């Protein structure tokens, strides 16, 4: 911590939150809110006189609310930076602190939150984790029995800098416990709460047991466990050491804790797998080794920093094996437990790894990005003909389109991230996206539906999420109907209504419109644009009395392989449930309407060529009769 404070290149901004991130790799603009401390950092010398005279006491979050702090405070004595804060919610404005501060004049009640923009080339997200609250498990009595505490509360009790100066006492009577139970996997590996293993708790429980045994050699300590997981370097040896010290290990997940209301002692009811029977043991104190869970504000962080989540709320890496440090957002990297539970050695290693990944960009003078940007065909833009439009500019999540009536819309290439939303929204087909042009997508569509289209499920997927979900379905070998035919675009925003009409015109049995969950969208609000369009399409098809289920809209993350497979199989079941003649009849009935709706697509440059090519392709694929 002090190394960071001392480092001339590291600028620590505490009590500060990220409000907004704009820009792109190499060129991010980050809006920071430096919350007002009411103490001027440049004048405070950390003497603590203000806290000494402050008459108000409130619980200290840093001590897990086991001890008070003043309204003028630092969370802990080794705080970095050592600058006091005034907690205005608790302050009664007696101004004794101002008096105590005297000539330093560091306390300033007129301070306001400061908003600052910072330009950076790369961002590392290291927002950490939070602790599972075991009070939602009534069987363990946390919150009801004073002598049931959590592991992190034990950390504060058994810490010389903590509220009891390291004296481990029972909250009920202040005595030292003689018999202590440590229960592992509280809220972890538990399908009611969190399915994951919290990674470090086995070692963490053993560590606390060893530390307590060193301080209190007579303490009788029992660890209840499901499995002991000590795979890293030196960990198994540490576990051996704990057993040699006389710490008892019982394999069994306690079903219940009861309390003697007189003594406040606790009875832990559990199975002992080794003995093969149910046991009940009495303890003076119980420590719950609670699960590690994502930060409560993970959704906000996700959308502000534009990083997607894996199941459970951990931030998702680009690829679990090949690019475990990169987020899917170029220039944004992940470090520590926010990406998935990990212990200190792994967090430090990942921090260094993230610095190295970011260094690749930050040591370059220029960085290359894919040229999959939008381009306006100026001669087709109605604005250039003097008509009022501007739909493209409204669709753009990045404000990358300059629109002025009388001039053709202009895409500022450096600002364009290539979602393709404007391309799909333009009612005059006057914009295209490089590498995902209408002609290219149409040629693919025709190829996929060349043969027996009525049997096919055409699946539009966004690159970042649902394409990844389909990949994961395959990687996990979740099998689904082989009638699925996938077509990838960068974002659901690019899924032009014309493509969907064209797919049905060609006689597709079913069409899936899929992309990211709204908070996961790689293009801020691209998914919302796609979702609104999908809703309009759904309504149009309802009006046309299309069999429900032939057009389906699903948001599938790259971590939801099981969902992708399930959705496709459900769509196959819909197709199976429609008698073939009825399906063919419906396709023929809707064809003229679909043709009418998709007709404007034919005006797009290169589309005629694509259709001509597709005709040849179809002949090659199915013969002359096509």
């Amino acid at each position, binding site marked *: *911590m002090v190394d*960071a404070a001392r480092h001339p*290149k590291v600028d620590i*901004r505490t*009590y*500060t*939150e990220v409000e907004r991130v704009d820009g792109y790799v*190499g*060129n991010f603009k980050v809006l*920071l809110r430096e919350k007002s401390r009411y103490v001027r950092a440049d004048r405070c010398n950390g003497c603590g006189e203000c806290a000494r005279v402050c008459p108000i006491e409130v619980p200290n979050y840093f001590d897990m609310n086991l001890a008070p702090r003043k309204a003028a405070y630092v*969370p*802990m004595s*080794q705080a*970095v930076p050592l600058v006091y804060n005034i907690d205005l919610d608790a302050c009664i404005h007696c101004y004794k602190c101002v008096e105590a501060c005297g000539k330093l004049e560091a306390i300033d009640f007129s301070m306001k939150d400061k908003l600052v923009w*910072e330009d*950076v*080339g790369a*961002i590392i997200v*290291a*927002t*950490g984790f939070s602790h599972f609250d075991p009070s939602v498990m009534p069987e363990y009595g946390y919150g009801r029995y004073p002598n049931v505490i959590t592991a992190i509360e034990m*950390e504060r009790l058994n810490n010389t800098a903590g509220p009891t100066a390291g004296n481990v006492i029972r909250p009920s009577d202040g005595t030292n416990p003689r018999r202590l139970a440590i229960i592992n996997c509280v809220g972890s590996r538990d399908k009611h709460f969190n399915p994951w293993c919290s990674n470090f708790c086995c*070692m963490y429980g053993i*560590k606390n047991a060893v*530390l307590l045994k060193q301080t209190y050699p007579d303490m009788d300590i029992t660890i209840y466990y499901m499995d002991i997981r000590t795979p890293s370097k*030196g960990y198994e040896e540490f576990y051996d050491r704990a057993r040699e010290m006389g710490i008892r290990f019982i394999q069994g997940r306690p079903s219940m804790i009861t309390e003697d209301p007189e003594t406040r002692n606790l009875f832990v009811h559990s199975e002992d797998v080794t003995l093969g029977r149910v046991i009940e043991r009495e303890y003076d104190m119980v420590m719950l080794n609670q699960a590690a869970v994502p930060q409560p504000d993970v959704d906000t962080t996700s959308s502000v*920093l534009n990083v997607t989540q894996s199941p459970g709320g951990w931030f998702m890496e*680009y*690829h679990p094996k090949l690019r475990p440090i990169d987020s899917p957002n170029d220039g944004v990297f992940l*470090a*520590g437990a926010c990406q998935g539970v990990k212990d*200190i050695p792994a*967090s*430090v*290693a990942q*921090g260094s790894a*993230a*610095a190295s990944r*970011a*260094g690749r960009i*930050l040591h*370059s003078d220029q*960085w*290359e*990005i894919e*040229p999959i940007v939008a381009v306006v065909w100026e001669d087709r833009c109605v604005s250039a003909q003097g008509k009022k439009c501007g739909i493209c500019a409204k669709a753009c999540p990045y404000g990358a389109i300059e629109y002025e009536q009388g001039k053709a819309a202009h895409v500022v290439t450096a600002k364009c991230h290539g979602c393709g939303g404007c391309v799909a929204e333009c009612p005059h087909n006057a914009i295209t996206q*490089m590498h995902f*042009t209408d002609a290219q997508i149409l040629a*693919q569509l025709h*190829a996929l539906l060349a043969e027996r289209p009525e049997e096919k499920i055409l699946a539009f997927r966004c690159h970042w999420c649902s394409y990844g979900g*389909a990949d994961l379905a*395959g990687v996990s070998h979740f*099998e689904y109907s*082989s009638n699925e*035919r*996938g077509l990838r675009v960068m974002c659901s925003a690019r899924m032009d209504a014309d493509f969907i009409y064209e797919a049905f015109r060609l006689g597709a049995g079913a069409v899936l419109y899929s992309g990211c969950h709204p908070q996961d969208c790689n293009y801020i609000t691209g998914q919302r644009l796609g979702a609104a369009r999908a809703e309009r399409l759904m309504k149009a098809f309802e009006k046309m009395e299309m069999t429900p289920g032939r057009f389906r809209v699903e948001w599938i993350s790259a971590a939801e392989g099981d969902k992708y497979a399930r959705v496709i199989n459900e769509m196959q079941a819909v197709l199976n449930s429609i008698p073939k003649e009825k399906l063919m009849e419906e396709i023929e009935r809707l064809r003229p309407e679909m043709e009418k709706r998709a007709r404007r697509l034919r005006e797009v440059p290169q589309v005629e*060529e*694509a259709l001509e*090519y597709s005709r040849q392709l179809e002949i090659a*694929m199915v013969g002359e009769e096509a």
Partner: protein
Amino acid sequence: MAGDNGHEELRIGVYVCHCGSNIAGVIDPKAVAEYAMTLPGVVRATDTLYACADSGQNLIKQEIKEYKLNRVVVAACSVRMHELTFRAAVSEAGLNPFLMEMANIREQCTWAHGHDPEGALEKAKDLTASAVAKAAFLTPLQMMKVPVTKRAMVVGGGVAGISAALDLGAQGIETILVEKQPTIGGTMAQLNKTFPTMDCSI
């Protein structure tokens, strides 16, 4: 018809990967290659044991020259896996990297339809045809170069964030370490000693 300038003759090469048994264990890549050979614009189609290996990449590079290919389709794994690999390969053979298109016949075909080899083969052919169709309309593109602001931001001042900030600092990069609490240290600072060495956490 669909070349860079609208007049160039299409010369598409299609490479169907076995990926060991990952693809070839379910479908016959040769059958896909033979099928691809019948598609308009395709002048060369063949199978390869591992398209991503040196041998596979060299085959593609060599045949780009030999067959004067102006588009390449690789029917193999996910674009998330090897799109950059094959873009680099075609680029080394003098072709614009954006004139390469992939068909995902592994993750999204043989791995997902392991018990339906017939359906998988039909799908692999369609996915390859779809990639060929897109390839016919690909145009050469240049990567965009953007300037780099040589400063970094680390969000979160726990042990991972501090480690990242110190390493960036040591690389000479000005780094802003943002922490929402009044002190850095995160969960680590709340701990007593840390395993397995039992040293102080701060």
